[in-house]
């Protein structure tokens, strides 16, 4: 492809990439995107050398006045857009930018026009960076970078070749080419792509090294918050069902201290409710308290002075990346002890729910350390449990008209004698006798619970949980409803749980005096087919890539930089320590042997040590002296040299010296071939070796192509064999 054509094509591709970024950021309306896309396509075809398009465009001549009129029109549209339509600078500016891009693509004639195009495309890619944080920006950015490198390079080279007059084209030697090739060559293609790759590497390095400073004077919130249900002050029975089909991602949860195998599901607690009026749940205590800040960004969720309740409990640490939601609730595995994040303050309510003062305006990342209590042994078998008055006051409330439910509950627990056993019996009853279905819309019913328990016998998590709570309360066991998410989707590529809207769930917390609130879930597990299809697997991989993009690029902060520095320092300390341990382990036996020898020498005779050392040194020197030829041969063929042809010259010289030692000297006037024939006559045994080395010498010294390493080794081998031959027979 000719340079000029490549230059035009790369310039248009640069603009096309930037425009694609804007389109993917959904900032360009259809009425503008479509004509611009058409103009881009035509420009690409024109730059690519499509004859039809070129001929068509050659026929069309437009006066410069028209372009100026179009420009003024675009300015007018900008003003209208700014004041009436969008009423926002960013979208109006983007629309104007796209119009400018389209006009400029149609007027690419002078080099100044190309410069304007580059400026517009740079603004466009900048605008798309402002509008999105999605992972699709990665390929767009990389394409833009590649196009930018090609474009800048070709812009410069076409300028150079255009400016230099032919008269001063210098004469060239046989080996040199001073004029630029008129077409893109193979070498140039790979050189430019190599420069682009180098630019990518350097970009990444600079990106991670630039200190992060955010003045934030004109920061704007990005994106709309995701609508959630089930986390407000009042939850109607059946409202969670509305989101059970929504696949939108709500959060991602990593478990740094545990492998996924250990956990196939994870309960992420949101809010708890204790008051049920027969149709909806609410919580009686709305008072919240702020958590104490115990360290930099770390809040203690447990009240000061309190201790974890008894019972076997495990600690789970979770790193949560929460999308922008319309709720200020912080989700975590029950029950949170420590919360760490970039928060000014974190609050908790009376039932252990975590809240931020306001719903976050952007995605947030935080860590939680939770203790998961389990029922202690003696409470499992205790026939009677004494509940505190406060618990009884808040968590035994049942709605009016729950006689049927109470009767059912008493029927279910007939065979059991302990509260724990009763709890399990009720749970089991619900698990076995009711069918899970999302079609049970009970939001409009007056007695949705009774409808679920006695009529339909189908429902989803809210129904099951409500039923269990009410049934437990009717038999005197305190319980409450909890809403949150149940994470079951493990992303093996990223090592985290992906939590979606459809994972919204409701379960039960049952109170035991010593064990505390224990999580129980009466909803039967819906064994959704584990996504094993390739498409789902690819989808998870893409999701993991998006998360890494978000973590490494979008969320990269000064804190991460410090963490990298600490990590590098710790890493280098660890490496240094490991190396010194390795060296010590190696040198220990050697120094042991030497000290033993020295001790032996000293005990045998005091001056022996010096003698032994001397003998060893002299012996080593003699040994090296004996092997100097071999070492020299090895060095000639294996050590790198500035001029490879020197190696064969050195070998040939070595051969001459060896032959001379055996009494056959090369006459000054004899050529190498003549000498080889002479050796053949005077020292038959050495003849073939000398002939071979001579041939290689000729090839390496005077031939066009240098000797291969194999040939050099062969020459060295022949010289070595020559050295080991006995003296020449005279």
């Amino acid at each position, binding site marked *: 492809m000719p340079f000029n054509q490549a230059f035009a094509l790369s310039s248009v591709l640069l603009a096309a990439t930037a425009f694609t970024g804007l389109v993917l950021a959904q900032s360009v309306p259809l009425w503008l995107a479509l004509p611009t896309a058409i103009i881009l396509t035509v420009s690409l075809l024109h730059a690519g050398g499509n004859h039809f398009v070129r001929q068509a465009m050659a026929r069309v001549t437009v006066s410069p006045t028209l372009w100026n009129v179009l420009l003024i029109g675009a300015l007018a549209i900008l003003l209208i857009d700014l004041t009436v339509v969008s009423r926002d600078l960013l979208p109006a500016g983007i629309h104007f930018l796209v119009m400018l891009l389209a006009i400029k693509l149609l007027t690419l004639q002078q080099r100044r026009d190309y410069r304007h195009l580059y400026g517009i495309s740079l603004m466009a890619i900048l605008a798309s960076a*402002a509008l999105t944080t999605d992972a699709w920006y990665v390929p767009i950015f990389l394409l833009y970078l590649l196009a930018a490198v090609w474009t800048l390079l070709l812009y410069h080279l076409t*300028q150079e070749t255009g400016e230099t007059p032919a008269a001063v084209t*210098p004469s060239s030697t046989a*080996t040199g080419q001073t004029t630029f090739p008129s077409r893109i060559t193979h070498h140039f293609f790979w050189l430019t792509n190599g420069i682009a790759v180098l*630019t990518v590497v*350097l970009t990444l390095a600079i990106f991670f090294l630039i200190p992060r400073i955010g003045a934030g*004077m004109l920061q704007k919130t990005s994106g709309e918050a995701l609508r959630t249900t089930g986390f407000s002050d009042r939850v109607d029975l059946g409202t969670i069902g509305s989101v059970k089909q929504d696949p939108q991602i709500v959060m991602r949860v990593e478990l740094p201290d545990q492998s996924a195998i250990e956990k196939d599901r994870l309960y992420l607690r949101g809010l708890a409710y204790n008051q049920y009026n027969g149709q909806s749940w609410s919580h009686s205590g709305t008072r919240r308290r702020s958590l104490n800040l115990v360290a930099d960004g770390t809040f203690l969720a447990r009240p000061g002075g309190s201790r974890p309740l008894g019972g076997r409990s495990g600690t789970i640490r979770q790193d949560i990346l929460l999308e922008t939601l319309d709720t200020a609730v912080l989700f975590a595995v029950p029950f949170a002890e420590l919360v760490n994040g970039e928060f000014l303050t974190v609050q908790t309510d009376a039932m252990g729910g975590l809240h931020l003062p306001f719903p976050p305006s952007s995605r947030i990342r935080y860590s939680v350390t939770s203790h998961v209590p389990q029922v202690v042994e003696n409470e499992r078998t205790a026939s009677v449990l004494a509940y505190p008055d406060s618990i009884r006051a808040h968590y035994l409330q049942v709605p009016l008209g729950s006689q049927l439910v109470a009767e059912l509950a008493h029927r279910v627990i007939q065979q059991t004698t302990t509260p724990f056993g009763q709890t399990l019996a009720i749970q089991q009853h619900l698990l076995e006798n009711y069918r899970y279905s999302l079609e049970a819309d009970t939001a409009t019913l007056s007695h949705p619970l009774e409808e679920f328990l006695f009529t339909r016998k189908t429902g989803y998590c809210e129904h099951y949980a409500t039923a269990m709570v009410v049934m437990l309360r009717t038999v005197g066991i305190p319980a409450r409803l909890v809403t949150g998410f149940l994470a079951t989707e493990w992303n093996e590529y990223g090592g985290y749980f992906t939590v979606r809207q459809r994972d919204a769930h409701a379960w039960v917390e049952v109170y035991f005096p010593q064990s505390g609130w224990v999580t129980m879930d009466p909803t039967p597990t819906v064994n959704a087919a584990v996504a094993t299809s390739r498409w789902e697997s690819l989808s998870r991989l893409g999701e993991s890539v998006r998360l890494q993009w978000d973590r490494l*690029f979008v969320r990269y902060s000064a804190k991460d930089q410090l963490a990298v520095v600490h990590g590098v320092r710790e890493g280098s300390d660890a490496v240094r320590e490991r190396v010194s341990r390795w060296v010590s382990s190696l040198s220990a036996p050697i120094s042991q042997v030497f000290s033993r020898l020295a001790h032996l020498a000293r005990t045998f005779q005091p001056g022996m040590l010096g003698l032994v050392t001397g003998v060893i040194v002299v012996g080593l020197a003699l040994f090296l002296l004996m092997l100097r030829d071999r070492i020299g041969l090895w060095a000639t063929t294996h050590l790198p040299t500035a001029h490879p042809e020197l190696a064969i010259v050195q070998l040939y010289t070595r051969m001459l010296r060896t032959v001379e030692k055996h009494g056959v000297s090369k006459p000054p006037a004899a050529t190498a071939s003549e000498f080889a024939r002479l050796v053949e006559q005077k020292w038959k045994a050495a003849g073939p070796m000398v002939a071979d080395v001579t041939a290689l010498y000729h090839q390496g010294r005077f031939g066009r192509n240098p000797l291969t390493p194999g040939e050099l080794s062969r020459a060295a081998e022949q010289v070595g064999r020559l050295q080991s031959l006995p003296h020449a027979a005279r």
Partner: protein
Amino acid sequence: MKHPLLNLRASRPFSFVQGMSRRRSIRLTSEGTRFLLFTFGIGLAAINTGNNLFYLLLAMMLSLIVISGLLSEYCLRRLEFHRHVPDLIMANEPTTLTLSVTNRNRHLSSFSLRLLDVVEGQDVDRGLSIHLLPPQSSVLLSYPLLATKRGWIRFQGIRAYTLFPFGLFLKKGLYSTEAHLLVSPPIKPLTLRFVDELVSEGQGQSLPQRGHGTQLYNLRLYQPGDDSRAIHWMTTARTSQLIVRETEAEDQRRITVVLSILAPEECAPLFERSVTFVASLLWQLTERAYPVRLLIGTEDSGLGAGSAHLLAMLRLLALCERQSPEPNGVSHHGAHPPLTHEAERGYTVAVVPWSNQAAPTNMEQADRVLHATQLEELTHAF
């Protein structure tokens, strides 16, 4: 004496830095300025918003700048220049100089090289450019040079610059390739009548003698012992007697040209024209195979003939410098060369662009003295 630690300018690190700064320089082009402004703007936006994607774009712009610097440096690195200049050229005569450029890089070609000649500390654009110089290859460049003044032209080096790869920066590198080129005075045509007159005067004043030469002196009968190669066969055939040819001793036609270098400032143009006149005269005499000798100040070319001797004399003329007379009119020592014994110098022509009437010099002893007035007449067309 200054303490070595305080004498920074004499320190090696300072010299190294100074050398490097002279050898390499970098300047922004107009495109580079715009690029930097854009980079600055994006940087400002990134700092303002804290948006990491802005930082990514900023990193891209910065990496392009760094790559540009690295590649341009690599283009200029390991270039070797060898200049080939003639020993002597003439002023106002175009000459071709050659410059060999070699790229010692192993892998990367050098692109978009423009070369400037550094002469007397000034960069002179000869229009030399190399679009592409592959690795381990060389190219020979030729360019015309027209010197307008006699004397030395000191080539200090070659300054190579490139805009590769993106045209954002102009990277210059200085390569020291010292060379000296001597420019002799131009050769101007002299009126044939004057030269003929001069020659005939010279001949008239010299007594022809038998000797080695090319001009015919005498024809006589062959005598035993004569060189048989001297037999003049045409006359021998005509007379039927062996006739030998005797030649006239050429050293009898010797001419000595003396140039006075004494002249005040206001006579400098005439002095230069006198130098040109002497060069042209010597050229004419050499063309006519006259043994010539040149005396300038204390410099003596010796008597000689042929082109080599002419070049030697032209070198003397190229390097002669005008001397201003003392305020008291006494000439400098050596301003007027001593005129030796008449037999040795032959016919002497003195060129005196300026003389002090009050202090006559030994130039008056010459056979022909050309004073300012005559010189003006003879050189008005120069």
